[in-house]
């Protein structure tokens, strides 16, 4: 069976950010990431004009 790409992603990003992820925590981290990505996808799917500013706007 092919490895789940999300497992590879957790490995790579965890290393890039120097985050320790013990094997025992991995299922919960993965489950939480799946929820976050599912919800982020809901936002991603929503079309916004290119000109849309983010909620926070820098003021000099």
């Amino acid at each position, binding site marked *: 069976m092919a490895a789940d790409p999300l497992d590879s*992603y*957790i490995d790579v*990003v*965890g290393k890039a*950010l*120097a*985050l*320790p*992820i*013990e094997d025992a*925590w991995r299922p*919960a*981290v*993965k489950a*939480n*990431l799946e*929820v*976050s*990505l599912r*919800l*982020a996808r*809901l*936002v*991603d799917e*929503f079309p*916004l004009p290119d000109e*849309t*500013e*983010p*909620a*926070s706007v820098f003021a000099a």
Partner: protein
Amino acid sequence: MNANPDELSASEIARSIVGHRMTALSVTEAALARIAKHDSILNSFTDLTADRARARAKAIDAAIAAGQNPGPLAGVPFAVKNLFDVQGLSTRAGSRINRDLKPSSRDATLIERMEAAGAVLVGALNMGEYAYDFTGENVHDGPSRNPHDVTRMTGGSSGGSGAAVGGRLVPLALGSDTNGSIRVPSSFCGIFGLKPTYGRLSRARSFPFVASFDHLGPFARNVGDLALAYDAMQGPDADDAACCTRAVDPVSGLLAQDIGGLRVAIAGGYFQKNVFPEAVEAVARVAKALGATKTVEIPEAARARAAAYVISTIEGASLHLDRLRRRPNDFDPAVRDRLLAGAMVPAPLVDRAQKFRRWYRAQVLEIFKSVDVIIAPATPCVAPKLGQVTFMLDGVELPVRANIGIHTQPISFIGLPVVAVPIPLQPMPIGVQIIAAPWREDIALRVAHALERMGVAAAPRPKEF
């Protein structure tokens, strides 16, 4: 007048003290005695500041004896969620890790302002770790317990604030609300809570969670006390970058104004889904009392909740990144695993969530052109049992922890002011959100006050406390 401080509101306590019918010291001692008697069960306090409180109370009594007026909260005991800096205490924010911080050298701005109005700080309160919580459970300090049924959750993350006010230990408490952490414990513990407009009250010298969502605010057992505390804490503060520069906008004198001209609508769609019958009943009671028949659809509320979730998890992860590297085993595992996952959400998705937030804000502000108040459930259900992991919502088994705040998140996402009002259903109370346009706390508080006068909203007395 009932001279038992356990039964008095904050305003009655202050009037009695200023009127020489009680002393601030006797009120402080009574609060400390109540805490000593009941908090082994409620587990709402993590720190007592008894010596400081007695010294402060004596100073107030001395000021009154000298003919001075110490302020509208003269001698009123209050406590704060333990993410507020309290001089001499390490700001633990519900964590094990932060106990290693140096003791704070100065109080949070809101504590200073409460004390400037005469209030007396008696301690710091239990909370969910780093405020990433809706339950009021804490693996390090144990759960705060619901005063109406100690086998149930207080809600969180300001769980100790809910238990201490609902359990009659103090008449006022302060907490924080990032995604619902004032409104959820208010709902579960049957008390009033105010989440003001984002930027209205200073967060200076409090431990953050999600900078763009964090609010601080008061809890009380009646609307007059809530307004008194809110008025005492308003005002600009250069120490909080998000704190507004608006002039103080007192509301206490406005509460009794007629609300007949206000346009009240019920939140439809998303806010009528995923609710238990008790939440439906509570909203119906409020709607009936206010004569509200119109329903408004807050567009894309589910997406707003999703965006709030995403921004919370990445801002939380960013805040704690170094602690996750250095001390991962000292976190509550449930909090740690969510934060680790939050660190891995790709940046473009977060940027899109912040852009969606601006779009959504514009849509909701458009609604407020034709409506003054929106009413919605504060929680989908009454307080679940401590340790309960899932509940059935609309026939689907869902995790309790993540879903308690589904009706609060789309509102704090754009910083709207909300008063959570307790509806005294039996056997457990539940809250309703009274939501107003930005900077219109006065309207939300006036409506809450009207509901209180009609007997629809009330903080029920727990049987045991």
